[in-house]
């Protein structure tokens, strides 16, 4: 029987290739991170500070502030948010069995945004003991709840008998987005000046407000969500065959779906809470990776985290340099780069969205 296989060329092993991408993408991410620390509105650079340290001198106050209090938290936040957006996109696409499902597009981002706005505006009304307990985590947690609620609602509306109707999904997403937008509008009315500034800033989608406090607020949730999502590879692969078949090949479908929804909501919620609506990372990154190394989720989810982080760090770099010393909101950069890719996917797979 061993001879049998010799009569055919060995089939390609895209999974191994995709796994080889892990170290490659990790290296690219490191390069992007270094570049991000080098460049900025002032002429402080990572290399000059490292050079000083090598000569036994300590960096001066400005250098410390620029590197450690401004650029580094912004970089860490960019890595976290980029990974969160890309992984939640990949996981949601696997869950909905559709390459067009993206938390930003189908209204989960809007739901998370509503949660965040609620927390920002009503946060002041909460009893002091509760705010002390939740601290910085209140906004990300509220965004998570908003994202969770909208994901479950969306799944209920768009999926019947394990099949997702793309048209229903997108239309439900529009409805959800409109509803969240309307409620957010009401909240903006009752917000005070400081909250209003928070909201405007946040709504543009930006990493400019990055601080260590935000890293601490969103970091744990994102790390846990990405970690959980990364374990769902086998289950999401099975789900590609449909819910019934996934169960037949031994996957606990209900548990897997619940975990995927939680992970998507937590990652999206935390990312939206600290950076606003940064779009298209969740749809572009998984799509590029599927083209490059196949759709196997066991490698895709990890690669998505790495590539998502890299792209967001680079987009942020771009946002900081194109009109320096001012900067663009990063949501503009990702939309300009991402929207054409999204249209291109639609063009190639028009059959998918036929009503």
């Amino acid at each position: 029987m061993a001879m049998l296989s010799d009569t055919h060329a060995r089939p390609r092993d895209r999974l191994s290739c995709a796994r080889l991408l892990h170290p490659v993408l990790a290296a690219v991410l490191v390069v992007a991170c270094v570049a991000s620390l080098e460049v900025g509105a002032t002429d402080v650079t990572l290399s000059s500070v490292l050079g000083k340290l090598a000569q036994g001198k300590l960096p001066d106050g400005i250098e410390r502030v620029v590197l450690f209090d401004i650029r580094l938290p912004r970089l860490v936040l960019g890595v976290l948010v980029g990974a969160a957006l890309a992984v939640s996109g990949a996981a949601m696409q696997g869950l909905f069995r559709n390459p067009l499902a993206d938390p930003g597009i189908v209204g989960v981002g809007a739901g998370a945004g509503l949660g965040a706005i609620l927390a920002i505006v009503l946060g002041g009304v909460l009893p002091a003991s509760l705010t002390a307990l939740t601290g910085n985590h209140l906004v990300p947690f509220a965004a998570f709840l908003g994202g969770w609620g909208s994901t479950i609602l969306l799944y209920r509306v768009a999926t019947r008998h394990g099949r997702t109707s793309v048209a229903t999904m997108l239309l439900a997403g529009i409805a959800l987005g409109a509803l969240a937008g309307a409620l957010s509008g009401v909240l903006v009315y009752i917000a005070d000046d400081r909250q209003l500034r928070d909201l405007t800033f946040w709504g543009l989608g930006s990493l400019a407000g990055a601080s260590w406090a935000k890293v601490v607020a969103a970091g744990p949730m994102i790390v846990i969500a990405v970690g959980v999502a990364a374990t769902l590879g086998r289950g999401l692969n099975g789900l590609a065959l449909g819910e019934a078949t996934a169960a037949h090949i031994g996957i606990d479908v209900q548990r897997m779906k619940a975990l995927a929804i939680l992970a998507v909501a937590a990652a999206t919620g935390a990312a939206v809470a600290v950076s606003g609506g940064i779009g298209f990372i969740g749809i572009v990154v998984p799509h590029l990776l599927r083209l490059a190394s196949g759709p196997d989720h066991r490698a895709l989810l990890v690669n998505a985290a790495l590539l998502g982080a890299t792209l967001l760090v680079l987009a942020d770099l771009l946002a900081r340099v194109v009109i320096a010393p001012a900067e663009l909101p990063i949501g503009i950069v990702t939309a300009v780069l991402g929207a054409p890719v999204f249209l291109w996917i639609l063009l190639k797979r028009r059959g998918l969205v036929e009503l």
Partner: protein
Amino acid sequence: MTLIAEDIRVVHGRHEALSGVSLHAAAGEVTAIVGPNGSGKSTLLGAMTASLPYRGRVILNGSDIATAKAWELAAQRAVLPQTSRLAFPFSVIEVVRLGLQAGTAGDRPDVPIRALERVGLAHHADRRFQELSGGEAQRVMLARVLAQVWEPVEDGQPRWLLLDEPVSSLDIAHQLQVMDIARSFARTGGGVIAVMHDLNLTALYADRLAVLSKGQCLSFGRTADVLTDKILSRAYGCSLRVSTPPPAGDPYILPHAASP
């Protein structure tokens, strides 16, 4: 060892799709389920694979499937659905490997390509599943199912193939190929349950036969005993005649001889 369905009842909305059907399939045999459209064939298979809610009991190799974990069932039986739509651009070999990761042959990387050879599609291993014709896709899914239960008997326990209309979109040569695969799986100790549409293929390959009609089992027994004018005519609601070709002695049913 056996796969037993006891008094299965399934309700779709207000319509009772199955009203108390029992079936007793033995390893080493091909058991076919036939019946007219809407008689509950696929529903019965759905209940026996725990794909839909049912009342009654299904006993697989001696234990009730209602209390078994998905992975425990996956190690004992594989299910071929009637149609398969794949969400992402997996290649053919990757689809077959999905079956491997479910079964117990996980440490045997040659199984997927051999399963593809079995269905005659090894040369398409690197093609995209979504580009295949309906018949090719159905055979790839059969290869996936075979990879899941590659050894028909393991640890003295038979393993099961549950096939929902496995030849529905195949040409005649591949119909025979697929039924041969099913029969040889049974002859080497495994169990096969197949929902069938084609009565002649059923007559050729089934050892045992259940005839469903309107959610009830009209008759269950050895194929030759069940394939009679009376039972078939009652099940399908038109007068059918079972004939026997001269040389081999297997019965066949000619639509020519039917009268309304």
